[in-house]
């Protein structure tokens, strides 16, 4: 049975509870017999999700007038923290070790472009590269299958197992 590493984006999309593909994927792997403890995240995923939410809350507050988004962003933040607590209890938040760091260094020197639906492309961030390194190295010598939307640049990375939600 494979072990999965949710990308930060898949993790956040599950926390939204809006029926996004990642949420449906989670229900699908349950039907396939996957155990909760075989679905992990990288240690940087909470930072990525909470950083985005914090930036959006700051932007809403700066807007001055009563924000419609603010209570929903707070709820999203609560969901993220709840999911993080659950994953931490199961030891499913994967920290960096020297093996992951070594792989991360290779990826830092590798150009990996994310292509937007409109065709624009942008180099992915170092935190995303750390996630990919974590998926490639895995745990106890077994790599994770990285759960992320399909991107051509990821498919070319040696040793990376991919699954699109």
């Amino acid at each position, binding site marked *: 049975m494979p072990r999965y590493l949710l990308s930060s984006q898949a993790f956040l999309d599950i926390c939204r509870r809006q029926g996004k593909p990642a949420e449906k994927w989670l229900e699908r792997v349950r039907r396939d017999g996957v155990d909760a403890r075989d679905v992990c995240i990288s240690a940087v995923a909470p930072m990525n999700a909470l950083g985005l939410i914090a930036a959006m809350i700051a932007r809403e507050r700066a807007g001055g007038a009563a924000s419609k988004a603010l209570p929903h962003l707070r709820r999203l933040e609560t969901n993220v923290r709840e999911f993080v607590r659950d994953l931490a209890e199961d030891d499913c938040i994967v920290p960096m070790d020297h093996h992951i760091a070594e792989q991360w260094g290779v990826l830092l020197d590798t150009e990996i472009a994310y292509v937007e639906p409109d065709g624009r492309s942008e180099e992915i*961030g170092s935190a995303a590269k750390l996630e990919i390194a974590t998926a490639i190295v895995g745990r106890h010598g077994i790599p994770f299958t990285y759960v992320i939307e399909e991107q051509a640049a990821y498919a070319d990375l040696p040793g990376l197992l991919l699954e699109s939600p």
Partner: protein
Amino acid sequence: METLAEVVTPLLDGDRTDDIGQLLAELEASLVSLEAANKGMPDIRKSALAGIPSVITRMGRSPDENATVVIALHQLAGLFGQVFAGGERKGVERRAPDAILARLKPIDFDFGDLRIPRRTHEETLGGRTALTLD
């Protein structure tokens, strides 16, 4: 096909010795009481020390001279427990990965794309160039 857990769990839940006997017949194993089980089986002890997987019970004598392994019921249950804990997790204690969804509150608001961005002020390409061998 039933999983090991589906076969064993109901057997260990209640007093269904007939079913246990049937299971053990499938496994070519014999069920004996703790008192009847053997601790003086030199061949098995010797093979166990040589690395051949065996179970040596602690008390009594073997009721079957041809037995390779004699095991008491409580040890059988313990053995199954170890199997579940070690590798066969999709049995008695498997947990659904989507159980968390029940604790996450649905959000009825259109956030739009809500894509995780790159952090600003980060250096990606050439991130290790500060280290030199000069």
